[in-house]
């Protein structure tokens, strides 16, 4: 089936697409037919920046199990790093003298 359902969030960071690195503005997540993966349905994630055109996209198509594993891995990686280390709040403080 085509679900048509799309979760879309604003994100901050960078991605590397077919033409190199670019700044990301949004991510979309949807369960639907893949373009390439050998399954009828997958969890599809697009990291995009529409301001740079439709080809500014990093795409993945994951099985349900591995998508959930990815979510857990993100949580584990963040939990094992100092709290807030990758937060925008830290970045916005700028370089810390003596750090």
């Amino acid at each position, binding site marked *: *089936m*085509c679900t*048509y359902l799309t979760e879309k969030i604003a994100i901050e960071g960078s991605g590397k697409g077919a033409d190199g690195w670019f700044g990301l503005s949004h991510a*979309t997540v949807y369960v639907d037919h893949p373009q390439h993966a050998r399954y*009828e349905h997958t969890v599809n994630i697009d990291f995009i920046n529409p301001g740079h055109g*439709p080809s500014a996209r990093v795409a993945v198509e994951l099985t349900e199990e591995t998508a959930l594993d990815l979510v857990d891995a993100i949580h584990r990686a963040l939990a094992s790093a100092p709290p807030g280390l990758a937060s925008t709040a830290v970045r916005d403080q700028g370089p810390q003298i003596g750090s």
Partner: protein
Amino acid sequence: MTDDTIKAGTIRIAGHHDDDIEAYLATPMAAGPRGGVVVIHHMPGYDAATKEMVRTFAVHGYAALCPNLYSRDAPGASPDDAAAAVRAAGGVPDERLIGDVAGAAAHLNSVPAANGKIGVIGHCSGGRHAFLAACSLRIDAAVDCYGAFVVKDPPAGMPAAMKPIIGLTPDLSCPLLGLFGADDSYPSPEETAVLGAELDRRGKEYEFHTYEGAGHAFFAVNRPSYRPEAAVDGWKRIIEFFARHLSS
């Protein structure tokens, strides 16, 4: 030159609001007159598999045209990038779809040897679009291949553009061929039965075939959902249906 020689390639046509949009045209080289078929691409886009369908209709004697519904949103992008961009932007508005199909039909009627008869066909989201176009425009034959959300309310969160359109049934302008999979949930056999009952109630000409052992997208030769028996029989029925309704 044999009768199955065709010419195919990308052209520009006037779509909704006279927008200049890309489209893929295939025409037989044999003499006409001949009908035209508008092929409405599926949600994954204006892709190689859809263009192959366009050429197949030309081999069977029709001028066939597929408008790129994502032409405005993602000009020149690869089909998958264009589909992702349109999806992120909320999808194709129904009104624009109708305008693009009307533009494609007008173009087909303007090519040499056109007999003035127009068929529409679509798969998946294109199946819903084919029904929508046939209820909104003067069409001569329509084929809905497993179009979802014609009957049933979509799940919460669906883009505003995707509303059930069974209420348009009284306006259906032509015979309808529906090809569905018994194992499909979108649309389910229960939903297509509801649509059939409504078509009966409105006195509309239609024929539905629901294939056992087939689910959604059983025509898609490049996907695991492909079911050869259903697809081969379905193609035969499509060609017969258009031959009945699009001949001069």
